[in-house]
């Protein structure tokens, strides 16, 4: 009984945490370049719907993930054009992008509601999957789950150990200084936002192709906003994002497990559980988070490009 509960809890945490991790990494990359994207929810939805439709028509989940990543990148490029080239307010543009993604994905997905797909296959890791309790919980998942932590490590490496990452962080801290040093803040922000769009698209695809294996309107259900909050929790560090995403995934998993087992707590209180947890964590960490934020986060660079 307890072993079964623990197994479902851990497996659920891993599955719920994976799209959150991809989305959080996307937001970390964008914010490190000085751009807040509140439209992450819309980008994820576009990835989810385009990935699902592609999988229905090609029968290949891999093609679906690829199409989702490209759709996310294209959608985020629209955001980049508005905030970088048109110098629009980032917060308001992000929310408008979310509304656009909600509407567009509902329109594209309407004929596909209820269509079943095979989706991403579960891969058993030979040997490790036979470990009692933890084996089935951690080592029987789809490929995107296994790729999530390596992608987080790769993001950390790219941001902190490459010249490109140095440019991204320089632009996020102070675009004027980066410009004076010969970097183009415009090019760097475009690159960061397109890369973020790729990851956010994959996050959406994992929901529609990997977990639910179906399309439903607004199926991200606020995960894009959770990811924006997790960036503060992670203090803009990709490696801390791993902990944040899976902790929050665990809270969602706990809520679902308690509900499935008919624990006599109001379902609305259980719905609240992951958000109460994130509010509590943000309140406890607030002071530290502010110092870790990139210096020019959210500001519009007015100089030459």
């Amino acid at each position, binding site marked *: 009984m307890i072993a079964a509960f623990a197994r479902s809890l851990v497996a659920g945490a891993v599955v719920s945490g994976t799209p959150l991790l991809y989305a959080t990494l996307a937001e970390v990359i964008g914010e490190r370049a000085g751009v807040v994207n509140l439209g992450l929810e819309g980008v994820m939805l576009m990835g989810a719907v385009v990935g699902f439709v592609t999988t229905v028509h090609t029968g290949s989940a891999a093609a679906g993930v690829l199409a989702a990543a490209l759709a996310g990148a294209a959608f985020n490029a629209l955001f980049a054009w*508005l*905030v970088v080239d*048109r*110098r*629009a*307010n980032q*917060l*308001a*543009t992000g*929310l*408008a*992008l*979310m*509304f*656009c993604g*909600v*509407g*567009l994905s*509902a*329109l594209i997905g*309407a004929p596909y509601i209820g269509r079943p797909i095979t989706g991403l296959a579960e891969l058993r890791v030979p040997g490790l999957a036979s470990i009692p309790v933890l084996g089935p919980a951690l080592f029987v998942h789809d490929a995107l789950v296994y790729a999530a932590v390596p992608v987080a490590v790769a993001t950390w490496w790219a941001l902190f150990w490459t010249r490109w990452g140095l440019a991204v962080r320089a632009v996020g801290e102070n675009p004027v200084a980066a410009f004076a040093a010969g970097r183009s803040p415009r090019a760097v922000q475009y690159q960061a936002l397109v890369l973020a769009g790729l990851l956010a698209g994959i996050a959406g695809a994992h929901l529609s192709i990997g977990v639910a294996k179906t399309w439903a*309107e*607004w199926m991200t259900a606020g995960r894009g906003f959770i990811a924006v909050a997790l960036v503060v929790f992670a203090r803009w560090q990709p490696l801390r994002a791993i902990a944040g995403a899976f902790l929050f995934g665990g809270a969602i998993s706990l809520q679902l497990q308690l509900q499935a087992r008919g624990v006599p707590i109001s379902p*609305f209180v259980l719905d609240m559980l992951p958000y109460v947890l994130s509010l509590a964590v943000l309140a406890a960490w607030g002071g530290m988070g502010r110092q870790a934020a990139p210096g020019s986060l959210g500001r*519009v660079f007015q100089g030459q490009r």
Partner: protein
Amino acid sequence: MIVGGGLAGLAGMAEVSAIQGRLRPSLSPGYGYTGFLISWMAAGHPAGIVGAAFVLAVITAGGDILQMTQALPGSVANILMAVLLFVVLGRSGARS
């Protein structure tokens, strides 16, 4: 902030008691986010808030009519709203 919270509470009260007539778990389909965008579009002018709120309300109501008559999901109205906002946002940024 306290007055703002009070006004937001009034908005919820109006939706529950005047429009829906009952309490449902999901009674505000993104109105909070829309409110943020309206206040941004109005740039702090109370008269602008009325105008911007009216324009976005017309679009939202249009979405409900589309859902009833055209077999389209009601949220397609969000696309029109977003395009309108993109234009306003893109122009305002270039001006400053």
